[in-house]
């Protein structure tokens, strides 16, 4: 039993930190978030070409680094901490995970080759506020050798800018867990309309994607009757998002400690007031608890991908960490505003960016209440 990063994992994390310090300071974030696109292409290019972070989980057979979720989580945590604006979560954590689990060899070879070149992708699956099969409303039907897709996706992370789209649709007339299928298409295929969806959290962009008789051939189909794969993809992505939330929660704490140590009122640093210290202590407790969960869940994710001993814990681990990290991030970000006083309420200070990212991330892929209900069903043997 060893619950610590290896030297190699620490190196990956350190190089990510060095990179992020450079490219994701407050000024860069603000510049990126003010655009519709939401990220700086030069930053994305160097992330891909120099750091090769998009290759972490790409299997070696397809030219990637063949590393696991422990490495991915270590990087995502830092991206959350530095609030990186980049299509990394959408491309690597969501779309690539889907292709890895649902795609055949040819589809994977093609997709990963493009990914290694730095091509971006997005995963579109929900049409409402459910992040499970209840959310899948876009339909497909077979017409001869072809598939015709219709419907509207919402909350597609980076959907308006991605070069490729992984689509989840249900066979016309199917309900619940039945009839789910994965497709992969270039985003500029005729029949696809993409519309940027302006969001409160400007550091992560979303889109609405409408399919109007989108005609796809058999080569675009990755997998039918794929509800299990669908759940696995979401659980794996959930763990990476939780890692990012832990990073954000940490940053909210760091900003607060730094600020309150400097701010003087009543002739003493406000950090010396016990009510301030105790709030900060609770912030640290929440973030460390969630972090312990995330590191464990990352190991579970690797086992799930490699049929290891902890593979069966995937669903549980994903729910545990998403619930814990969602609460940790949002509460920490809220406390950060409070402990900053008036400046915490300004656009000028960075706290609000974390506060907004925290709320959006809390709901994306299901909030704490959703994940706890999922846990409750299993715990109560229903």
């Amino acid at each position, binding site marked *: 039993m060893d619950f610590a990063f290896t030297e190699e994992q620490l190196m990956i994390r350190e190089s990510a930190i060095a990179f992020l310090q450079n490219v994701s300071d407050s000024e860069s974030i603000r510049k990126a978030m003010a655009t519709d696109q939401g990220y700086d292409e030069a930053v994305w290019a160097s992330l891909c070409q120099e750091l090769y972070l998009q290759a972490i989980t790409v299997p070696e057979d397809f030219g990637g680094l063949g590393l696991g979720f422990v490495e991915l989580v270590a990087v995502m945590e830092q991206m959350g901490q530095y609030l990186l604006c980049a299509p990394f979560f959408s491309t690597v954590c969501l779309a690539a995970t889907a292709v890895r689990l649902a795609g055949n060899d040819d589809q994977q070879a093609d997709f990963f080759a493009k990914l290694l070149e730095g091509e971006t992708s997005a995963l579109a699956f929900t049409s409402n506020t459910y992040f499970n099969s209840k959310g899948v409303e876009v339909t497909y039907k077979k017409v001869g050798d072809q598939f015709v897709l219709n419907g509207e996706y919402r909350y597609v992370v980076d959907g308006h800018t991605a070069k490729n789209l992984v689509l989840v649709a249900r066979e016309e007339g199917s309900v619940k867990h039945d009839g789910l299928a994965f497709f992969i298409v270039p985003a500029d295929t005729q029949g696809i309309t993409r519309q940027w969806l302006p969001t409160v959290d400007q550091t992560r962009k979303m889109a609405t994607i409408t399919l109007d008789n989108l005609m796809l051939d058999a080569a675009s189909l990755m997998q039918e009757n794929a509800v299990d794969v669908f759940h696995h993809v979401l659980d794996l992505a959930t763990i990476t998002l939780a890692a990012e939330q832990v990073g954000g929660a940490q940053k909210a704490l760091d900003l607060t400690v730094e600020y309150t140590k400097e701010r003087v009122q009543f002739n003493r640093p406000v950090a010396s007031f016990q009510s301030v*210290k105790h709030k*900060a202590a609770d912030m640290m407790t929440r973030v*460390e608890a969630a972090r312990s969960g995330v590191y464990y869940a990352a190991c579970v994710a690797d086992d799930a991908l490699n049929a290891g001993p902890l593979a069966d814990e995937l669903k549980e681990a994903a729910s545990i960490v998403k619930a*814990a990290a969602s609460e940790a991030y949002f509460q920490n970000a809220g406390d950060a505003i409070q402990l900053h006083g008036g400046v915490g309420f300004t656009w000028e200070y960075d706290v609000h960016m974390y506060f907004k990212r925290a709320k959006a991330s809390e709901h994306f892929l299901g909030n704490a209440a959703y994940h706890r209900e999922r*846990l409750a069903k299993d*715990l109560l043997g229903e």
Partner: protein
Amino acid sequence: MKLTFSKADEAFRQEVVSWLDAHLVGEFEQLKFRGGPGDEHMFPEERKRWEQTLAEGGWIGLGWPKEAGGRGCSIEQQVIFYEEYARAGAPGRVGHIGEGLAGPTIAAFGSDEQKQKYLPGILNGTELWCQGYSEPSAGSDLANVKTKARFDETKGKWIINGQKVWTSLAHESDYIFVIARTDPDSVAHKGLGFFLMKMDQSGIDVRPIEQITGTSEFNEVFFDEAECEAEDIVGKPGDGWKVAMGLLGFERGVSTLGQQMAFQNELNDVIAAAKANGAANDPVIRQRIAKAHEGLKIMRYNSMRTLSHDASDGALHKEALMYKLYWATWHRDLGELAMDVLGMECDVLEEAPYELTRLQSMYLFVRSDTIYGGTNQIQRNIIAERGLGMPKEPKVTIKA
């Protein structure tokens, strides 16, 4: 990261499981799931005999170094032992203060003579210890102890006068370790001594304190010209604080995973109760049950993270620093959840005059988890100051 146990460790697990299986029988059968928090006054004699049975099996001092007579087991094996112990429902330990606190302190700071005199009795489960720290004027502010120790040249002994309070299991114990002031003019951390004392003497008077549960697990201990042998001071006069603080390091050890297994047993009871009375259909209760499960799992992951750190540097990592606050608060919430699952039935006693059900006594007892061993407020001070580098409170002096 690698989170599974080795083959050898799993074999060790089997050894623990079969030993417990073979020995939790006969008079010990009735001890299953007994003697835990809130139930610590039950079956004292049987539980003392159980300590000796454990000792015969070689299960006391697993983590102690071999030189001290322990088995020097790896962290993994200790974890496994504590987990299986709790999973089997083996009874709450009456020897834990000796094994977990007194023994390691003596092994680390004691003289060879003290080691020979005291360690065997702890290891063979025959001698029980209690912790004499808190006093009426020294709770969170432990350094404010007023109990005095003076060396009597004619008797050739230390003479102790004063009072301890909240002393758990003093009424069952053979020995007590005491911090007392060796320099009568000293204040705070300076001028303290650390003493090992026999309980059975005329100068020591133990008076049980009735607790919130109606039972008595802790006591007042009065010292009136009580005697301590000259050679039974650990370290030198004035070293008491250093020794006592060294001991705190032993308090958050591997036993946490066993404690978590006991929590798991309690949570299972709560879930069973919710299923039985239909509370499991209440969406709010469902959320709270799931949250309790989530917290307990996170404690486990968190302890694994702590135990993976190389402890030799003595550094206290952040996840270790927040652990007491986290589990104590979690346990308190579990108590409340248990009562809310029961609904109005939570108010109905097992029996008059004041026999509590297991969940009721858990619910009441958990209110102490956030108090002893450093209150939640003290934990937050420590986290903020040591974990986050925030400044200490300015001192206020009370005018006489």
